[in-house]
């Protein structure tokens, strides 16, 4: 299973963290510090796998972002690479040629999309189209709610309550 997903920029800034196994906040920072030290220093054209504390970390670089997933020793590395690519393609489709800034300002959306792809550290949806449809449906749910909420009258009603 996937223990966690990290998105780290080339400068070592963290863009997304998702933990499927239990880590305390302290361990989380430690893990990220350790891994970004290992991964960011690896040159291009090397293999995409790093052995780390008895686990394997599969990473792939897209533009300035490193997508990393930590898996068990006997998990399939190539499969994880495909999952990473799958995620990137969906992000790309959702944001329209995604860039790092999109993920910075829409960090929650990146999470929601990831939640549709992975659950409990396993892949749950391998169809890009389905994911796109599900996310769109949820977004429209939010939009309608927002319209109601942001009308001035609503705010006044709230305030004078």
């Amino acid at each position, binding site marked *: 299973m996937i223990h966690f997903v990290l998105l780290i920029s080339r400068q070592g800034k963290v863009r997304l963290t998702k933990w499927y196994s239990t880590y305390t906040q302290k361990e989380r920072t430690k893990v990220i510090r350790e891994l970004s030290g290992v991964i960011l220093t690896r040159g291009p054209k090397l293999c995409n796998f790093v052995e780390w504390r008895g686990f394997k970390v599969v990473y792939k670089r897209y533009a300035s972002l490193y997508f990393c997933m930590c898996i068990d020793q006997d998990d399939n590395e190539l499969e994880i690479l495909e999952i990473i690519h799958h995620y990137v393609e969906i992000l790309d489709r959702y944001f329209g040629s995604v860039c790092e800034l999109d993920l910075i300002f829409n960090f929650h959306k990146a999470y929601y999309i990831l939640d549709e792809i992975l659950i409990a550290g396993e892949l749950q949806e391998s169809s890009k189209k389905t994911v796109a449809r599900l996310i769109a449906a*949820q977004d429209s749910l939010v939009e309608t709610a927002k319209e109601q909420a942001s009308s001035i009258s609503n705010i006044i009603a709230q305030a004078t309550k």
Partner: protein
Amino acid sequence: MSGPSLMDSLFQRTLEDLIKGLRQQLIGEQAFISKALEEIRKEIKSTDLSTKSTALLKLSYLSSLHFHDMSFATFHALEVLSSPRFSHKRIAYHAISISFHDSTPVLLLITNHLRKDLSSTNEFEVSLSLQCLSRIANVDLARDLTPEIFTLLSSNKLYVRKKAVAVVLRVFEKYPESVRVCFKRLVENLENSDPQVLSAVVGVFCELASKDPISYLPLAPEFYKILVDSKNNWVLIKVLKIFAKLAPLEPRLAKRVVEPICDHMRRTGAKSLVFECVRTVVTSLIENDSAVRLAVGKVREFLVDEDPNLKYLGLQALSIVAPKHLWAVSENKEFVIKSLSDADPNIKIESLRLVMALVSEHNVAEISRVLVNYALKSDPDFCNEILGSILSTCSRNVYEIIVDFDWYVSLLGEMSRIPHCQKGEEIENQLIDIGMRVKDVRPELVCVSRDLLIDPALLGNSFLHRLLSAAAWVSGEYVEYSRNPLELMEALLQPRTSLLPPSITAIYIQSAFKVLVFCLLTYLMQRGSTASSMFPDNLPSAVSASVSYESFDDLSVENVVDATDTHGPTCTSASITNESIVNLLNLVELALGPLLGSHDVEIQERARNVLGFVDLTKLDLLNSSVQEENDSERKGAEASKTIELMHGAFSKELGPVSSSAQGKICLPDGLMLKENLGDLEMICGDIDQPSSNSFSFGSPYEEKGGVSFSNLQIKENSRQSNESTSLLAEHRKRHGLYYLPSGKSEMISNDYPPANDPMLLGNINDNADDLVKLTEESLTPKRKPNHAKPRPVVVKLDEVDEKPESKEDSLSGAVHDVLFGSEDIVPTSSQSNLSDMPSSKRKGKEKQHTDSHVESKENLVDHGNPSSRRRKHHSHGKERRHRSPRKKNAEERKDNGQKLKEKSSHRHGMHKSGQRAEEPFNFSVQTPVIPDFLL
């Protein structure tokens, strides 16, 4: 404090504002964040849910990317969760899943929210709560929400169902009892036609089977069907993983799955699937030669591929296959060696492992030579990686593959001179270990140690200090093989030794002591011999003559004779003159004098010992050198007596100790070893702990010094360790050498060839070829008894260690319970008897293996008929499975399908009413599942 005003709500910073603001802060980011946190703390108390949720969103941003604590907001997250709006819920669930953990206090309050959302009509709300549950479920949540999960497992919304399936894994893990409720529905989902649901179920079983494969053996037919039918690579990879776990347990299953796996390997274009097939074959189907050949063929394709990923994985697959099929590695030898110089450190390490797998008795010298040369050229990390693997390979099974120890010892010396070497500790252990175990190599060992000690440059490298301590110990302990003890003395007392840590300085002093005693003794004997017999050429006989003349006790006489005999006439004695002895004593006083004021007790005490000894002997020796020879005989008698005595104390040989030696010592009466010392810890508190630790364990160096100092101390050590066996067990493992030889290990050391071995004659003859031959001859029989004896005992120890590990956890117990029936389990008190599960389970397993053949036939007759109850999937599956004899398959499917139903109804009955009456029936129905399928 009141909540924020309307204005606050209107002008609240949104997440985007926060992020923008953060990005503009080039410096003072922390200040900005703490200001933002201040705002959030205020906003989150707002009564307006929109304001609250925005604050929560911002907080989860800061928490997940900047790792700020958000535990203060757990209750507010719950408040937002109760909002009817989806957008709020989404934010709340996200915040909860990143911030809640098992000990979050408000976790109790979330159960009802989750229950409400799990039964919501909005599938997205259900999905959110499932996502969240998969992350935060603890025992209580898992228990309380099991009914909801059970319902969702057969939801007609596939979107929800697949998530529920995935969540089941976490629920099972936390609350094994839920297996009794949910397992059947989970298994039913294996027949689902939707690829996503199927993928989720297989994923769950893959995780479950990796922990305890044997419980899922009965499901092999379902998995087999998926393996043959599925076209989905994601699913196939997971199924292959399951079979990789199941196949080793059941040889007939292995035979069945080989064919389809090889088919996939040949047909598919997806590298991930090919690799999974290869890995399954090399890990679990290693007996099947044709499959292994096919897999190795695929591996070769990987190896020559441009993609470094495939290269790496190919090498990894080779290293899995290596222990059983070494030919696979030798076939790809060129490639493996070439990869040693790959740009990628991971590939290098992988190929290094493979090269080490190739090492055997015949080529170890050659390969080590190549690797050491290579290590000289490579970067520090990889250099140490190489050295480490050479060391561990060569020392495997008590130096099994080493024939020529002289070569190996000089290799150790060479390795320690490599500039990047950081393996001092490992080399240290091996130097001492070899010194004790292999008598014939000692002259070479002393020679190597001398070279190490004499080099002042090595003292500057702190990684080598421990290695130097070993060298010092060796040269002190086996000083009789030294060519020039005086030189050794200078090396041990050279000024740069001040760079050493105190514990190692202590060893240096102790070794210097031994060398000093030896020098003085040789000097005395030399003088005695010139006095008594006037033939200086004929030293050995003169020595023995002089010794017998002085009439010391037999033991020390023999030792002296041994010592001088072994290195023969070429040695030292001739070179020690009055003058050099005077110089030597002066040197000792000069070097050790300042250490008397050392703050380290160990150093101080040892230095004082040596200087005391010098004081005792110096006067006599110096006086005698000036006076008449005959006179000195008398005057020096006292000094020489002291020297002889000290030499006698040092010359007793230390032998290796088996790691199980401790077990041989019987416990004194009234000693409580298993008493719980928990209270003690509380009483002692934090401050006492470190000191008490250092007392009971002792630093390794001190221990070592103690051993060389006198046997008495060792005895004390072992008596102490007797009192705290468990504490010392680990220490003993690491420093086993330094413990007192028990009865058994004495037997071992008796296995050494006697002192007057042909080997020694060969040494004197100096015939190199004979020597090599003799070494081989004397080594092989000697090595065998040396470790053949301890090994069986070690194995026994391992068994004892493993037993508690192999104990199944309660989850697998529950699963087993559901799958195999509960032949000897009392269902009413299931929670409490979970701990008994393993034993009952094992019993069940055995029963199954012995009885199933007999019973299965009857069962087919008895229960095979009601095919009308079969579901469509079954007949469908039957049609597709052309490989096996149809009739049998049909029967077995029937049997299986019906069984599941019966089992489930039965299970429900059991769960509710706790009847035991039907158990035998249940058992006999379920056991034949696998054998039928496989035969």
